[in-house]
């Protein structure tokens, strides 16, 4: 069984979590071009590597960030959004 560490609840089985995709910066819809907005909506960085991702712990309703290598599936660390430095 794969495990993941929720910053609030500790190590839990992966089946309790939902993948939320890579953390991406939203361009300002009022000032960006149509092309930039379409790129934000549709395109993704699909190449493998170390990525910052959103994950969700279902039973407790906690969204948090995981830094994970998508090639090896190894998680370097997890933390609540905005609390990166406190870890």
């Amino acid at each position, binding site marked *: 069984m*794969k495990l993941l560490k929720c910053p609030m609840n500790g190590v839990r089985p992966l089946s309790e979590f939902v*993948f939320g995709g890579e953390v991406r910066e939203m361009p300002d819809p009022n000032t960006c071009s149509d092309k930039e907005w379409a790129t934000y909506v549709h395109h*993704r960085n*699909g*190449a493998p590597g170390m990525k910052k991702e959103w994950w969700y712990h279902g039973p407790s309703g906690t969204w948090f960030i995981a830094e994970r290598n998508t090639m090896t*599936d190894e998680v370097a660390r997890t933390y609540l959004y905005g609390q990166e430095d406190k870890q």
Partner: protein
Amino acid sequence: MPLRLLKYAMSREHPAPRFFRACETPKKSYDAVIIGGGGHGLAAAYYLARDHGITNVAVLERGYIGGGNTGRNTTIVRSNYLTPEGVNFYNASVKLFEDLSHDLDLNLFYSTRGHFTLAHTESAMRTMRWRAEVNKHVGVESYVVGPDEISKACPQLDISCSGQAPILGALYHAPGSVARHDAVAWGYARGADHMGVEIFQSTEVTGIDVQGGKVKGVQTNRGYISTNKVLSAVAGFTPRVCKMVDVQTPIIIQPLQACVSEPMKPWLDTILVSGSLHVYVSQSSRGELVMGSSLDPYEVHSTRSSLDFVEGLTTHILDMFPFLSNVKVVRQWAGMADITPDFAPIMGKTPVEGFYLDAGWGTWGFKATPISGKTMAETIANDRAPDLINSFRLSRFEEYELTGEKGAASVGH
């Protein structure tokens, strides 16, 4: 055939016939280079040579031919899609598949079985009716059937699914078939090789040379090859190849797993799919049950398989067929699926001149092998994509003209 066999009985030597030449040193330049020696890449090479007379072509394969998703799918061929564009495209593929053993002079064990997409809920029935109407409109034989007809075609199926998810009906698709997937790759490889195409195995592309927005060549572990036309047909490696030319796509990679049971006497002669139970199953010509399920739930660039998958899948198989409880799973594996947001492929030209994309094949690539090869060959030869694949162009995302095929994916992903 018997005489040819007899010759070997008399001889001390039993050389295995080669399907294609063992090429090792690439030429300095080719008219076109195809990255990826799977079914799609080899089919493109075959049709480039056969239909367009372009034979100075190299196919570069990182591993061995047909060793990627061509050899990892569950071999189902069907055209019961949801959009008219999708149905037309996959129907053209089924038509090519039907004559392919003859074309390639190789028995592909192409076997038309009929294909049931089971519906366990009213909303699923609604999608089945929708797909049936679109299919009929385009001229594809699909229609909605009730539980009685399903039981008649497959008496072993527990229609109540252990009481958990009673089957209300199904979308029946008469042309649904299975085929030997690796034979498809090998047949195309042999055909292309006979016309002069060179196939390089263990040959990895490490970079693509783009100058002034145009492709000039590819860098490989066997040296630099100059060419003006490059086709990427690499399934789960698409994001890595696109990064080499700085082309953005919506594709992310998720593993798709499958497994087979031990061989049994033939008892299942149709193909069964259940969206609600996340299962598809057919019996191969060797007697094994070939079973697949939905995608793994997050991005990983790996072909590792998991116990979670077999447990989940077999639980649902037992809901459908309780008598299989003593049957063993003998093999399981995974492939890297390149998933698009609308569950349709990405085919055709890209912002980089001379760089063509045959990608986004997610969980629906094998059935499209012949037609994708044919249309990509046409795209490369004319530098213009045929109308049949216009709805699958990369620029559809910028234009917000998506081709929504999620409802026709074999299981609810």
